[in-house]
C-alpha cells in the first residue's frame, strides 16, 4: 500500500502534464469530426500521444488498416525498448500476469520516472504510477473533446509545449549529474536535428527517426562510455 501511494504521488505530475496534451488530442479529434466518446475511447485503449495523433489522421483520411498497423508499429516501437529496460527494473513481485497489466501502461514518462527510482520497483508502485496518469489522459481527452472549443486559440497553442517541458525535467538533471548521459543525449539530439533539417533525411517518418536516433546514440554510449558493472547494479537496485 505504501508503494501504491508512492507510485500515485510520482504519477501526479505526469497526470497533470498529460491533461494538457490529451486535452489537445480531444479538441483535435472533435474538430476533425469524431464524436467525443470516440476520442475518449481511443485515449483509454491506446494511452500514447504520438501514436494517437497519427492514428487520428489515418482514421479521418480513411486510410488502409495496414497503414494504421504499420504507422502504430513504427511510432510506438520505442516502447519495446522501454519495456525491455523496464523488464530489468521490476522486482520479483511483478509476476507474468502483472507484466501483462503493467505493459499496458508503459509510456515515455511513466517509464522514465520508474527508471529514475533508485531501487527496483514493485507491482504496487507501478500500479499507482500508471493509474493516476491514465485517468489524467482519459479525463483530459474528455475535457478537450467537450470544452476545447471555448478556449481562446492563444491558450490552446501555449499548451503544446507542456509535454516537452516534462521531458526536459527528466533529462536535464540526469545530464547535469552524469556527463556520459549528457553525451548520449547530445548525440541523440544532433541526429534528430539532422533528420529534421537535412533534405532527404527529413522525409523519414517521425516514429522511425526516434528509433534510429535512440538506438544509435545509446549504442554509441554503451560502446564508448559503458556503465560500470557495480555501478549499473547500484543504479537499479
Amino acid at each position, binding site marked *: 500500500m505504501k508503494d501504491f501511494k508512492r507510485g500515485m504521488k510520482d504519477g501526479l505530475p505526469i497526470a497533470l502534464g498529460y491533461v494538457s496534451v490529451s486535452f489537445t488530442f480531444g479538441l483535435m479529434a472533435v474538430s476533425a469530426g469524431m464524436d467525443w466518446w470516440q476520442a475518449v475511447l481511443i485515449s483509454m485503449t491506446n494511452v500514447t500521444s504520438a501514436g494517437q495523433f497519427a492514428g487520428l489522421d489515418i482514421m479521418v483520411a480513411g486510410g488502409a488498416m495496414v497503414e494504421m498497423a504499420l504507422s502504430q508499429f513504427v511510432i510506438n516501437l520505442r516502447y519495446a525498448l522501454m519495456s525491455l529496460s523496464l523488464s530489468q527494473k521490476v522486482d520479483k513481485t511483478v509476476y507474468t500476469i502483472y507484466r501483462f497489466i503493467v505493459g499496458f501502461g508503459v509510456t515515455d514518462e511513466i517509464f522514465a520516472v520508474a527508471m529514475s527510482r533508485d531501487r527496483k520497483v514493485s507491482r504496487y508502485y507501478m500500479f499507482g504510477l500508471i493509474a493516476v496518469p491514465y485517468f489524467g489522459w482519459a479525463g483530459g481527452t474528455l475535457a478537450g473533446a467537450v470544452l476545447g472549443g471555448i478556449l481562446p486559440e492563444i491558450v490552446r497553442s501555449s499548451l503544446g509545449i507542456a509535454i516537452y517541458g516534462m521531458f*526536459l525535467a527528466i533529462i536535464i538533471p540526469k545530464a547535469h549529474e552524469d556527463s556520459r548521459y549528457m553525451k548520449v543525449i547530445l548525440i541523440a539530439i544532433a541526429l534528430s536535428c539532422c533528420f529534421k533539417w537535412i533534405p532527404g533525411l527529413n522525409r523519414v517518418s517521425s516514429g522511425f527517426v526516434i528509433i534510429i536516433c535512440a538506438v544509435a546514440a545509446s549504442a554509441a554510449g554503451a560502446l564508448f562510455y559503458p556503465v560500470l558493472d557495480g555501478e549499473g547494479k547500484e543504479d537499479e537496485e
Partner: protein
Amino acid sequence: MGVTEFFMYLAVMAGVTYAIRAVPLVLCKREITNRFLRSFLAYVPYAVLGAMTFPAIFYSTDGYLAAAAGTAVALVLAFYRKGLLLVAVGACLAAFLVKII
C-alpha cells in the same frame, strides 16, 4: 466513417500498440548481465526523450520566439530540479506571456 469502421481502426491501433509494450516485458524475465546491453538499456530512455524533444520543442507552439522562451524557462527550471509539473507549467506560461506581449 461508420461506427463499425471506427471500431476496426481502434482494434488495430490498440492491438499493435499493446503488443509492442507487453511482449518484451512478459518474455524478458532474466536479468541481463551483458555489459553492453545493460549500458545500452540504461541510455535508451534519455536518448529517446532527447530525440523527441529537440528540435520538436521549437515547433510545439505558434511562433518561434514563444517556443524559444518556453524552452529557455524549462531548461533553467529543469536544471534546478524543479520537478515535472513546475517545469511543464513554467514553459507554457513563458510561451503564453511572450504571445500576449
